[in-house]
């Protein structure tokens, strides 16, 4: 049965919710899809904080729309994940207890307006590279959610780059602010592609199930090669003294990621890990009475209508 299953995936057939699947396939997908959903939801926090402080109405409506999209993306992904037989409440519980992970990038603070530019340009840029590959993944509901998400995501990166571009063309203080944001977000963005291929434990299995099309290192290189010219275009400097075009390879050589920092943040010791989870918990706990009241109201209305009918 497992051989038939693997064969279906190898032949580019999709797996749908009611199909038989190995337990490991189900578990791995719950882990990855929920992690992805949690990243969208937690990703709303650093940006949500800047909506009321956006410098113009144009920036404000764009940021508001972007954060709303992230909420929507989280919802598409939670729905896809629930088709694997886990409830929404269990998923939230896993996030709030720390059992489930989310993208570590969101454990860095967004301290200036320029961070809204850097996040859109770099963090969303890195996310798009990861996500495009997933539009073709083997689990149908996940692939369909990714297609919707990718369609909506490109506006996120463009609005971020436009913020950086505007700041870089502005006063010396504005340009310095843009450079400072790039300095702080560059390395966390590279970390978004995960550990090196040598250290990545899930790669082989994920390739087989089409949860991955390219390795972490290949995707990271792709991101660097596409982003460096963009930085040059707006006159900002990538904070890596080892960055250098390698004409033989046809790509950039670059420095070393601080893996110690990477693992510290993954393990929960990043600058904002606690703050993010406590904000999520607070929202969930404080919203409980609203969820309960809405349910009671709906049930009462249904009973009233039933009584009226008889």
């Amino acid at each position: 049965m497992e051989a038939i299953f693997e064969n279906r995936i190898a032949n580019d057939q999709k797996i749908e919710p009611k199909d038989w699947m190995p337990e490991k396939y189900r578990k791995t997908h719950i882990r990855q899809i929920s992690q992805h959903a949690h990243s969208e939801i937690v990703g709303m926090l650093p940006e949500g904080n800047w909506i009321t402080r956006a410098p113009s109405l144009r920036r404000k409506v764009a940021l508001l729309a972007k954060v709303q999209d992230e909420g929507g993306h989280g919802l598409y992904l939670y729905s896809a994940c629930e088709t694997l037989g886990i409830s929404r409440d269990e998923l939230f519980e896993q996030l709030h207890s720390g059992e489930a992970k989310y993208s570590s990038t969101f454990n860095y603070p967004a301290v200036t307006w320029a961070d809204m530019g850097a996040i859109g340009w770099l963090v969303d840029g890195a996310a798009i590279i990861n996500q495009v590959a997933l539009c073709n993944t083997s689990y149908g509901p996940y692939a369909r959610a990714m297609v919707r998400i990718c369609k909506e995501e490109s506006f996120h990166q463009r609005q971020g780059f436009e913020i950086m571009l505007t700041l870089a063309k502005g006063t010396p203080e504005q340009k310095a602010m843009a450079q400072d944001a790039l300095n702080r977000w560059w390395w966390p963005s590279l970390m978004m592609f995960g550990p090196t291929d040598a250290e990545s434990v899930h790669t082989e299995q994920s390739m087989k199930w089409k949860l991955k099309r390219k390795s972490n290192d290949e995707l990271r290189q792709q991101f660097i090669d596409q982003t460096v010219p963009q930085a040059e275009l707006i006159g900002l400097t990538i904070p890596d003294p080892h960055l250098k075009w390698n004409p033989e390879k046809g790509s950039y050589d670059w420095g070393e990621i601080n893996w110690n920092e990477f693992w510290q943040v993954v393990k929960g010791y990043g600058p904002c890990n606690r703050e993010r989870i406590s904000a999520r918990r607070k929202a969930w706990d404080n919203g409980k009475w609203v969820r309960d009241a809405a349910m009671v109201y709906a049930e009462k209305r249904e009973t009233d209508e039933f009584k009226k009918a008889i």
Partner: protein
Amino acid sequence: MKNWPLWEVFVRSKNGLEHRHCGSLHATDATMALENARDVYTRRNEGVSIWVVPSAAITASNPEDSGELFEPAKDKAYRHPTFYNLPDELKHM
């Protein structure tokens, strides 16, 4: 407290086309499901009409029964126009 039930969302992208399933969401009742569906699935003019259906109301065929359900159609090639041999001179039919 009881969890909010799950609803399936179907969107008609424009008049003349059918409603298509586009995902699901949680809501306490049909009114809320419609409002949430509007916000979650039609933020960029994706629809002109929405249906919401309680997921529990859907009866789905089981993949294990696919053989007996769908295979009988496979050996009925005569239901397709290409089954019939017609002379090449006949350009349109």
